[in-house]
């Protein structure tokens, strides 16, 4: 009898653990993926300031407040000065919010926070949650290393951190809707490095995958934006998810639960459809790029397959269509159109299409079909025009383009509107490691054009490369003509370029070989750059800088110098012996330079009234008084 009981318990434990392993492999791939997720969450929470950073967050918070009370329209300005905050739009006499997908998906986080608030002091509860996530990370790392000392020592360290945080905790200003949005964005952002790891680990090795995730988390402003309720980190996660699904759709069935290539192919379209619920114009761009690359390169385009894809895409659009119907009364009209310029373009294009339609196809097609075609074609035409405008800006406004991509400095359009500080960095100043993409030059020099292109199917890796490259180019073109503008800090509109750039970087054989052979040199440089270089930067800012704009530009010049050195090395394409080690060190320096900016920006430059979620980070910010 007792033996039976024991056996039953073991059986239940097995079922439980196998369900957990399934869930883990679906969400994170493997234990390393889970570790990356937990580590990213812990890191993002360090950067979390529990207040509003950009004013249109008021719109989202009020939107979530209204939604939690069952109203899609904004009803009450619980946050901010009023309902007409940036991002809110008037429609038919009511005010609507934006990014409804984000609002709906933040609801569970809101309920979770309300539940926590009911049983604990919210500040202590958040500190406890953070400590538990860190503890989970320690346990997973302990399992990975198979050493009990790691687990036990780490757990004691967590306890110390928890006690110190509680000792200096202050009460939190209640803003549950804002905090729910911030938690949702952090959770989504934490999946971005996991997806990059899973993709690169499948393409190459687990080590390369892990290093790619490290480059992404520390070498780009991901951690800075993770806790800020803007769509940018969501976009990054979506493009990486699409790239991963696209890759898996061209490799043999593998894994648990979701394994078939067709399932992954459908998933890539469904992700785009779901993203349309958050920001339709960008989703349109991703969808077009995906279709243009996926359909011609797929091995199987039978009608049955295409029907499956179309169904998956249509299903993923259901939330958007439901929201549109509730808000505007029309399933097709998104609450927010592409931009003022796009809207006017749409009107002209629409009128041209109508005259053309009545002239030729009108006799054959019934009017509703013409209307539907128009409704589908107009956004495409607008998108195409926007891309052309962007391409033209490359020629007509090279100085503005260089300010967006290379060197920011002081100029009127990028100044913070209130105080004239040059606080908007360029792409390269935000993520200097992207300069390593220059290693593509030696690759192209040795590249020989294949004899015939017909009858060749691209490999899964090549398809993913092409998708990533084209998406990066199109995202850049979509916004080039409008940038630089104020309040973007790290060219946040081009945020997808950070993960896509890191992917392309590790795909280059030069960089990969160096990371693989000299990963220790890279990691040590990164650690030294943050811990020792960080102190030097703090001293430099304290002594040589007396304003936030100058501090930002100091970081910009520091990053640019590491970018310059990195690109010079990357252009040589040499990886043997010392050149390889130098490459690893330069990658580490570029990564740490970006990390230092993110850390100091979150802790010090934009302390936002010392509202850091974790008391110890707040205390550090109060201790440092730099600008």
């Amino acid at each position, binding site marked *: 009898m*007792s*033996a039976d*009981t*024991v056996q039953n318990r073991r059986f239940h434990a097995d079922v439980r653990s196998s369900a957990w392993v399934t869930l883990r492999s679906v969400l994170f791939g493997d234990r390393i993926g889970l570790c990356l997720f937990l580590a990213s969450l812990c890191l993002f929470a360090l950067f979390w300031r529990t207040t509003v950073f950009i004013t249109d967050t008021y719109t989202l918070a009020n939107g979530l407040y209204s939604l939690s009370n069952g109203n899609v329209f904004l009803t009450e300005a619980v946050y901010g000065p009023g309902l007409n905050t940036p991002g809110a739009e008037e429609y038919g006499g009511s005010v609507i919010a934006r990014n409804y997908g984000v609002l709906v998906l933040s609801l569970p986080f809101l309920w979770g926070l309300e539940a926590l608030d*009911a*049983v*604990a*002091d919210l*500040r*202590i*509860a958040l*500190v*406890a949650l953070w*400590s*538990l996530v860190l*503890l989970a990370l*320690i*346990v997973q790392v*302990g399992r990975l290393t198979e050493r*009990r*000392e790691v*687990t*036990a020592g780490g*757990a*004691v360290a*967590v*306890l110390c951190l*928890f006690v110190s945080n*509680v000792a*200096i*905790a*202050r*009460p*939190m200003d209640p803003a549950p809707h804002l905090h729910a949005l911030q938690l949702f964005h952090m959770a989504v952002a934490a999946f971005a490095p996991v997806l990059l790891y899973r993709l690169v680990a499948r393409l190459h090795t687990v080590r390369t995958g892990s290093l790619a995730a490290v480059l992404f988390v520390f070498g780009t402003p991901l951690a800075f934006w993770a806790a800020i309720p803007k769509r940018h980190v969501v976009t990054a996660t979506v493009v990486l998810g699409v790239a991963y699904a696209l890759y898996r759709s061209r490799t043999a069935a593998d894994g648990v639960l979701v394994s078939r290539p067709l399932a992954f192919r459908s998933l890539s379209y469904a992700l785009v459809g779901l993203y349309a619920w958050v920001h339709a114009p960008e989703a349109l761009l991703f969808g077009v790029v995906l279709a243009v690359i996926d359909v011609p390169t797929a091995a199987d385009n039978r009608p049955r397959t295409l029907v499956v894809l179309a169904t998956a895409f249509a299903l993923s659009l259901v939330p958007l269509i439901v929201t549109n119907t509730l808000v505007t009364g029309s399933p097709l009209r998104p609450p927010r159109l592409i931009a003022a310029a796009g809207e006017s373009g749409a009107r002209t294009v629409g009128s041209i299409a109508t005259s053309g339609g009545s002239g030729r196809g009108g006799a054959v097609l019934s009017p509703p079909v013409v209307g539907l075609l128009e409704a589908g074609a107009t956004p495409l035409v607008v998108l195409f025009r926007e891309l052309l405008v962007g391409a033209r800006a490359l020629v007509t406004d090279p100085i503005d383009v260089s300010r967006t991509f290379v*060197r*920011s*400095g*002081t100029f009127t359009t990028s100044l913070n509107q209130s*105080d*004239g*500080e*040059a606080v908007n960095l360029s792409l390269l100043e935000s993520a200097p490691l992207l300069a390593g993409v220059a290693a593509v030059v030696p690759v192209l020099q040795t590249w020989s054009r294949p004899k015939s292109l017909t009858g060749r199917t691209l490999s899964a890796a090549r398809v993913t490369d092409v998708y990533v490259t084209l998406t990066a180019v199109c995202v850049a073109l979509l916004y080039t003509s409008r940038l630089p503008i104020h309040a973007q800090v790290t060219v946040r509109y081009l945020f997808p370029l950070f993960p896509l750039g890191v992917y392309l970087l590790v795909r280059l054989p030069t960089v990969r070989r160096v990371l693989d052979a000299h990963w220790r040199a890279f990691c040590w440089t990164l650690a030294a750059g943050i811990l020792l270089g960080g102190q030097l930067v703090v001293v430099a800012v304290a002594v*040589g*800088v*007396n*304003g936030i*704009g*100058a501090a*930002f*530009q*100091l970081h*910009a*010049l520091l990053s640019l110098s590491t970018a310059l050195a990195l690109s010079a090395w990357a252009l040589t394409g040499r990886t043997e012996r010392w050149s390889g080690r130098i490459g690893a060190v330069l990658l580490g320096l570029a990564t740490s330079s970006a990390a230092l900016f993110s850390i100091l920006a979150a802790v010090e430059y934009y302390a936002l009234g010392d509202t850091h979620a974790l008391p110890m980070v707040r205390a550090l910010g109060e201790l440092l*008084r730099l*600008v």
Partner: protein
Amino acid sequence: MLLSTLLQSYVTMDYARAVVLGVASVVVVTALVSGPLVPGVSLTQERDVAYGTGNVTVAEVQFPDRVTIERASFGQDGYYLTVPPATVRFSTLSGSPTMVYRLAIDELGYTRSTVHFLSESVGERYEATIQSDSFDENELTNETYHGTVGVVVEDSRSRRVVAERAVTVEVVG
């Protein structure tokens, strides 16, 4: 039999697991104690809210001799105002009074002040600062300006100017 199995599992439970479970329970229990389930316990320190109350007497204020407006560095255009700190000595300090350190440049129609929240933990001597500020190039025509720096305190008794002095504001670079 069952009991012995259970006991055995406790004995063989590895110590790392025990530490992890122990830490996790401390964290969870602390969070629950902080909440409304256990009334009367507060783990968060409320910040002093009644600023500008209490009692403060200033014995001496040492102002800087020179205030500068320096050209900004690292590609930031324009100029930054730098006011060195003023050293304030208190003869009495209790409660939570406030102190304002301010600068006025009449020729530019410019004033800037920074509020300092005092408490007993401040001690006898305090370095008051003024937050830096930026100037446009075309705002500045002279090489020097006449400015006034001052310290104002507010406590339960009154709000009063305790020291004031003229300074030269130099434009550098």
